[in-house]
């Protein structure tokens, strides 16, 4: 077998950036994005201080998270271990950028598709070494087959001690470093200032990590600019999806467990609202794609390991059942309504919670992989559905709340609040997750987060518990606002800590 691999010898590297420009030239990489770059970190105290370099790029992981998450197999692994991409089928969902724990993937601004180091596969297939290997003045970059004992890669792996980036991510990377300083490979191993030693940091730079314990001061002296990958459209999609799920889940549960006839609100408005928000969800999802016109690729050639692909089918199935259910309710086909309530409920729940597994595939964002997310999303849906219905209830006269339901809403909000606090307060298994949680509770997203906690959770919970019925629409409104704010804070915070 062939397993193409990198050996990157930082004892040789002089930090000249030739690999950076040779790569830009060979692969026509646009300004603003990089397939390979050289991070500089100054470590120590004068005069015992050194600048350490690390050439960073795709690791061609054996267990490549970018491949697993890609909904269309645009990101794929070849039999020789080379992780390549096919820009002709990439829909530009950016999920691979969230999945990669190494910051190796970017959106090509010309094609609006994902790209990254691919070992110069077009050269490799012709028997030519990657461009960076050829240009490197000091032979610091070594390309070769790990399974070929005569290759320079194999000989160096046998002779030298090597490290890999972020081993805790368990991706089995195939970029092996000789003599790299930990502060260069650990994304949180050094602090960032507002500028670098001879460059700007760029707008949209990730938030500064909270100070980790280090024996020596380490400061990033050069790094590339980065943009946040997912923003308000993704936060909003989670939110509209919760409403879409909840607005049907609530009446479906009534149908299943309540055994009572519906009011207008539940029978007609709720399914319609669910459909509307599901449509909005779809619109947001498509709008967030860099290649929205290729949306259908997901359904035509799904990559089944991807929760993005699975989710698309869950949503589609949910939409179909929901439409049927809404029609049945509209035309008063009560039998059908009762029968469909079960699949509606199940699919609504899945629609609400599949995002937890999708976020779980985002190996680059440790905060999103917390176990609490599934429960949070499961709570989001009924709360969002209920809240949305409460908001529209005054418009159509009447609300569905009974005392027990309002208690349950308060309880739900309480549990959700505790779960959210858990993100901030609990111990996290990785430094990345801890840094993100810090951003959420005490850093860049803390204002969003605490507004959500107080105004969007505590206040409506109190209103549901003790407020007059007339305040329920307000409580609903606050709940919805809280859900969005919290979701947004969570999405942003997860992407905060540098991962390279």
């Amino acid at each position, binding site marked *: 077998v062939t397993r193409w691999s990198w050996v990157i010898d930082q004892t040789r590297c002089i930090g000249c950036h030739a690999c950076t420009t040779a790569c830009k030239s060979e692969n026509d990489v646009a300004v603003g994005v990089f397939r390979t770059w050289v991070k500089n970190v100054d470590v120590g105290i004068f005069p015992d201080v050194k600048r350490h370099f690390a050439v960073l790029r795709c690791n061609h992981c054996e267990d490549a998270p970018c491949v697993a998450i890609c909904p269309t197999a645009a990101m794929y692994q070849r039999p020789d271990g080379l992780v390549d991409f096919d820009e002709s089928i990439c829909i530009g969902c950016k999920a691979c950028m969230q999945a990669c724990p190494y910051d190796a993937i970017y959106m090509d601004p010309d094609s609006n598709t994902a790209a990254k180091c691919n070992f110069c596969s077009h050269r490799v297939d012709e028997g030519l070494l990657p*461009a960076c290997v*050829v*240009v490197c*003045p000091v032979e610091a970059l070594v390309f070769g087959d790990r399974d070929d004992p005569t290759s*320079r890669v194999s000989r160096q792996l046998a002779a030298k001690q090597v490290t890999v980036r972020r081993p805790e991510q368990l991706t089995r990377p195939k970029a092996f470093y000789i003599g790299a300083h930990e502060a260069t490979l650990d994304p949180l191993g050094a602090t960032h200032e507002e500028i670098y030693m001879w*460059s*700007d940091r760029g707008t949209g730079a990730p938030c500064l990590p909270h100070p980790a314990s280090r024996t020596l001061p380490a400061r990033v002296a050069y790094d590339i600019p980065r943009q946040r990958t997912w923003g308000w459209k993704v936060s909003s999609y989670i939110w509209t999806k919760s409403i879409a799920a909840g607005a049907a889940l609530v009446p479906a549960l009534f149908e299943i467990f309540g055994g009572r006839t519906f009011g207008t609100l539940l029978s007609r408005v709720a399914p319609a609202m669910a459909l509307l928000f599901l449509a909005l969800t779809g619109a947001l999802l498509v709008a967030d794609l860099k290649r929205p016109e290729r949306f259908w690729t997901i359904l035509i050639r799904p990559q089944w390991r991807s929760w993005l692909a699975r989710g698309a089918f869950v949503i589609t199935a949910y939409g179909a059942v929901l439409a049927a259910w809404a029609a049945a309710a509209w035309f008063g086909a009560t039998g059908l309504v009762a029968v469909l309530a079960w699949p509606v409920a199940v699919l609504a729940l899945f629609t609400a919670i599949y995002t937890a597994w999708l976020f779980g595939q985002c190996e680059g964002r440790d905060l999103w992989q917390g176990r609490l997310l599934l429960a949070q999303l499961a709570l989001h849906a009924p709360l969002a559905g209920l809240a949305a219905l409460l908001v529209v209830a005054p418009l159509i006269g009447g609300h569905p709340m009974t005392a027990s339901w309002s208690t349950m809403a308060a309880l739900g909000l309480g549990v959700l609040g505790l779960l959210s606090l858990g993100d901030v307060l609990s111990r996290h298994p990785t430094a990345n997750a801890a840094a993100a949680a810090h951003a959420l509770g005490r850093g860049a997203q803390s204002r969003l987060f605490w507004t959500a906690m107080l105004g969007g959770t505590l206040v409506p919970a109190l209103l549901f518990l003790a407020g007059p019925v007339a305040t329920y629409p307000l409580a609903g409104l606050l709940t919805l606002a809280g859900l969005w704010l919290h979701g947004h804070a969570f999405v942003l915070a997860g992407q905060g800590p540098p991962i390279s």
Partner: protein
Amino acid sequence: MTDGKTAGRQDGKSLHPADDGQMQAGFSAFPPAERWSDWVEGGRKHSLVATTCFNCEAACGLLAYVDQETRVVTKFEGNPHHPGSRGRNCAKGPATLNQIHDPERILYPLRRTGARGEGKWQRVSWDEALDDLAGRIRAAIKDKHPNTVMYHVGRPGEDGYTERVLAAWGVDGHNSHTNICSAGARAGYAFWMGMDRPSPDHANAKCILLISSHLEAGHYFNPHAQRIIEAQQRGAKVIVMDPRLSNTASKADHWLPTFPGSEPAVLLAIANCLIRERTYDREFVRKWVNWEEYLGSREPGAVPEVSADGPTPDSRLPFEEFERELERLYAQYTPEFAEAESGVPAATIVECAKLVAAAGSAFSAHTWRASAAGNLGGWMTARCLFFLNVLTGSVGTEGGAIPASWTKFVPAPHVRPPHPTTWNELTWPKEYPLAFFEMSFLLPHFLKEGRGTLDVYFTRVYNPVWTNPDGFSWIEVLRDEQLIGRHAALTPVWSETAWFADYVLPVGLGSERHDLASFETHGGSWLGFRQPVQRALKDQLGEPVTDTRDTNPGEVWEENEFWIELSWRIDPDGAMGIRKFFESPYQPGVKLRIDEYYRWIFENSVPGLPEKAAAEELTPMEYMRKYASFDVPSPAYRRHEQAVPAEEMAESAVNAAGRVFTSKAAPASSNITPMPVPPADAEGRRAAGVMVDGVARRGFPTPSGKLEFYSSTLAAWGWPELAIPTTIESHVSPRQMDASKSEFCLVPTFRLPMLIHTRSGNAKWLNEIAHSNPLWISTADGQRLGVEVGDLVRVETEIGYFVVRAWVTEGMRPGVVACSHHMGRWRVSEESGTGRWSSALVKLEEQGNGCWRMRRLHGVTPWPSSDHDSSRVWWQSAGVHQNLTFPVHPDPISGAHAWHQKVRVLRAETGDQEGDIVVDTAKSHAVYREWLKLARPAPGPGGMRRPHWLLRPLRPVAEAYKLTADG
């Protein structure tokens, strides 16, 4: 033994260390040369054409990929056949692609229509520009003021071509950038060995001492870095002196963050260790150092009688006496003394001394700018550094410091004009008789003082307004049509200087021009051929070419052909005796074609090339068009030991000091690398060697024929106290600084690995990586000043100030601040002038009496162009143009501008903005006058303007060296 072994490897084989399956079976680094004419990539047919990079001076090989159908260059890789760069490049090599496709580049000749600097231009034809310039030059020559024609070159990137043009015109009009660059180092090396630079054989060294950041900049960055790392991986120790944590310092085994100007003290302390412990190469010093002359100078008349049989064993002053003298002379330079001067612990210095001693003849050392370019007396850094090479016997050895001329090959052209007969006082003023070389950066002051005027001034890929100190004084004289009659800027891109020209004449980049270059990258010689790749391709395909404009974008030309054409227009009928130097060697009387010029050289002046070409069934020209480089078989090591051939000895005489003179002509050589001309004897016989232990050997091209520990030249030209390696108090030494007044030494010269002066401003990939030059301040000083990273500080110099952000760092010696040299490009017009990848838009205000103010209107911003990337520019910084705030500091001996500045660093004041610059040029002129007082003017012995033996570009005839009564 790296290069020695690879020297013969060129036969069609790649020199890249990963090629031909060496890294991975079945994998190559490059397409094989036999397929270069028809290489399919990305489904398209390409021709691969070799050329030479035109970014830094290293002249590394490049391989251009030309799409056969569109004839567009699609990328540049290294040239695997280039012996210096061996298929590898730094970041600037591939970025040549940005430069040739830069949407900002100038495509047609332009002529000023408004006032100088007003920014109004019209397109003109080359003919109009040529006729105008030729007419004026012709008149200047005819009217006997040839030296009002001046050619001012930045880094030439070529050997000999343009000097030949000037000599043909009979004009002593060569001006260079050398004295803002390497003059200090050159002087320090030249007073030792005549030749003004070493070729350090890093690859074979055991210990490498660098006082320049050769792993990121320096001369020959990429070729040297390859070899330094190669040696280090093999176990060699690397010692780096630099007050700033450069990348090179970071890679060093020992970083010595010396206080600027204290380097000689540290070097002499190392010397002292070697001397005291007798760990120096006593035999080498005894044989090859002019110790007898030194002892004689100490005790006049005590030079021992030396016969043709060599010094007698019982000579009155034995070598041991010199050794005792050495010990006495350098006893004061203890490691503790050096620690007090430099801030480097004595123990570290002792440890380094052990490494130097252990390396012996495999000790390679180099300094080029850095300390030598920063300090008053900076040349002494190079002199003291080479002292260590002398003490270790590592001169001309494997792993040592080879005199650069031994590794350089400049092939003779078909016809060589005579030396100019006049002396140019504007470039070689009598105040600086020992300068290396032209006092270029004083030109504005000389013009202001009325020392002369210029009728035609060429700036060639040179940007003095930006690059030189005191740029506002440059602007003042460039604007003055009384002082400069015509200014033609030969440049590929807009620059701050071109803005003040009368003509902007676009010339080609690395893949659009012809040049020949040979540089001292290692223990071997090579010749690199820069060529217009599209033209080379047309040649290959048999398509006709009139001149390089046919294949360059727009009407971009190349200087080579421009000079031929200009020379013909100066002397259209040949009556002035100029035209004949620009006629074809193959068709008498016909205008020289540039391919004929090089063809003749390759056929006649490069030993081994015709044979090697024939082996591949190519003509020499075809061979060079294909490989663009040639490994010249030439012994690099121990040339000083070569015996003087018997035929020269047949007509020889040996003087009392053992110098061998001969009346035989020098052996014929097609290598015309400029060499020093040691004085002839009274009978006019040339110096050919020196007696060593009874054998006449070649020795060194110095007056004594040996390495000159004692420089009789310095002694005779007014500097006896500096005739041996010693220390000179720098103008920025700690004793000059008052910390309580926030005074610091500013190091404004440091370079970055991905930029090159103002030549890389048009490369988007490079500017994307580096685009700001914050002031490096040590953490301790930052705390003292209350300054944090990103804060604005005001840096006050003698003549003004600039406002810049702070980079507070552990990587800086306290008491010293540093600001990178590259950035701070500016333009005054939104859409023209200096390229937008790298420049800020500024408002330039002249407030009268020499007071100037610059304020930034905006930094780098995206703009729409044919290149989508211009709208994706994400950085805003353009850096700050600090050089504007520096007065000139001419070193009285080397003539180097001492770049370091004594500055006050203060927190910015209310209203200060990043990029603010305020300067008073009246003050700068006053500083010039102060430094001028340090000079000890000519005449020297014999009423000379300059010691005739020293190197000098475009050396005039000997008679011109006589300082005449009228100046």
